């Protein structure tokens, strides 16, 4: 049996398979199809300080081998998450990673402090890159000094592992990664969605009520993989949570070989509600076939040759 254990910036996981924020709800939505205890970690929907109702509909449009979404961070607020959802997740024993978004630096600090005080949460994923909210969001994710400010603020308010999730909508991803690692990020998650749009030609208007949305799914995989590779090359010691179009175990292994310590399954959950488990089992089968004893040895394997 291969040792699948990995450590993501201080977060010990039994295997590298996690869920991409916003695609797996608060976890239990997928319980009919997935034994949640088998996942390396569960990353829940993006939470904010106050509850949010999100954007108007249509919020989703399908595109070739992908989809655009503009949900706008509809969520019950961090308090709502901790009271209504977390208790049911606790008995699973699976590490819970909470994804946070703030309108201001102060809000990121407050969110981090609340999570730090909450025993049942294992790590924080800081979303500095949501393309779908008007305030804050995208600027925090595209200007290195602002990304560093957010990271510093979160770092000051928690001892838990801090994973900073980067936006792919930048010229140089390694510059962003360095900026947040310099001020205390324990790991980097990438990528969030690519900003895009689609037009309904009959109605002569954008398909999404929000006009723009985030592209995800198999269509973005080569871009995501390239960014994981670049960040690993620039910062080989920093663990990466890789995502973007991962649909099969083969995709996941590509990300690991590019330098991801762990991976997240996103849009693929919609296509196959058992995708996380199928990918986990596929990774196990690959390791067995290739005679790999420790999965950790595969991380970044594509760089040495």
């Amino acid at each position, binding site marked *: 049996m291969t040792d699948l254990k990995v450590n993501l910036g201080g977060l010990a996981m039994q295997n590298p398979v996690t869920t991409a924020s*916003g*695609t*797996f*709800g608060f976890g239990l*939505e*997928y*319980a*009919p*199809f997935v034994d949640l205890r088998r996942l390396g970690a569960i990353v829940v*929907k993006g939470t904010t300080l106050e509850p949010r*109702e*999100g954007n*108007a*509909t*249509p*919020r*989703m*449009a*399908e595109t*070739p*081998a*992908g*989809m655009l*979404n503009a*949900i706008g961070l*509809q969520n019950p607020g961090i308090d709502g998450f901790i009271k209504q959802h977390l208790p049911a997740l606790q008995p699973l024993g699976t590490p819970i990673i909470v994804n946070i978004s703030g309108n201001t630096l102060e809000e990121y600090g407050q969110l981090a402090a609340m999570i730090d005080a909450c025993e049942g949460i294992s790590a924080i994923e800081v979303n500095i890159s949501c393309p779908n909210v008007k305030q804050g969001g995208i600027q925090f994710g595209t200007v290195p000094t602002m990304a560093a400010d957010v990271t510093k603020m979160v770092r000051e308010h928690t001892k838990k592992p801090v994973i900073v999730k980067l936006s792919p909508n930048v010229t140089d991803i390694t510059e962003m990664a360095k900026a947040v690692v310099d001020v205390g990020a324990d790991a980097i998650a990438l990528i969030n969605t690519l900003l895009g749009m689609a037009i309904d030609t009959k109605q002569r208007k954008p398909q999404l009520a929000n006009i723009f949305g985030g592209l995800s*799914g*198999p269509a973005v995989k080569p871009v995501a993989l390239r960014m994981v590779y670049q960040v690993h090359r620039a910062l080989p010691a920093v663990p990466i949570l890789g995502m973007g179009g991962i*649909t099969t175990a083969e995709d996941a292994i590509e990300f690991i070989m590019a330098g991801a310590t762990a991976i997240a399954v996103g*849009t693929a*959950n*919609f*296509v*196959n*509600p*058992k995708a996380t488990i199928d990918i986990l089992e596929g990774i196990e089968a690959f390791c067995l076939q290739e005679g790999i004893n420790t999965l950790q040895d595969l991380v970044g394997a594509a760089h040495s040759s």
Partner: protein
Amino acid sequence: MQPILYHATVLEQEELKPAIFRIRFMAPELARLCQPGQFIQVRVNAMVDPLLPRPISIHDFDSEAGTVTLLYHRVGKGTAILAQCQPGEQVMIWGPLGRGWTLPEAQDLPAGDLLPIYVAGGIGVAPLLSLAKAWSKVGKPGILLCGGRCEEQLVALEEFQALGVDVDLATEDGSAGHCGRVTALFDHLPLLGKMPLLYTCGPKGMLKAIHELALQKGWPCQVSLEERMCCGLGACLSCVCKREASQEGKTWTHAKVCTDGPVFWSKEVIWDD
């Protein structure tokens, strides 16, 4: 009730009218779980384009025969692929999903002698057949008011008639029944002193018109809503609608069409757009 994932075998598929198909699957475990008004997700191919599963209402189910039947309109890429499926092929489906119609035995129906009236617009007839079966079982088959652009859009009428349902039609071009909108059929309804209970599915404009009529008459009314859907499990929050709320400071919240619905009481829905 927990949904299940299934590689279901196609038993038969038929084009009933141009571009309107009926497909029947063998899926015994699923058939046992179905409730009228619920839907399933259908993954039309094993490729990544089209990527997402298609949500389709459960038209009919037979827990003894172990079959689940869908009625669908071929409108684009996904339904065109489904329409090519031959008997014997397997299709990945999961469900049943969502909350269906309020059934005869439910506690939250008004007291008194009820008259179920099903109002369908085009393919919106699909989720109403199994509901009519449930009412027919308790001796109240009710009335179907079915509207469409033309006669070729009206399907499954014989199935309703076989249950003892009175069927009345309206088409915009006058090719069948009354010439005009389905709402006009309400002018001559034989209510016989009973309390109408409206169940409706179809284009949004029609649902809104039926809701307004129900409100004006004081009749209870349920609508089955459609939104662009993704996961179908309440996880991604793509398919929301505005629903009245009474939480502090809020007059509405975004409800999930896939798990809070697709069936809602029409007076809970905010019909502003």
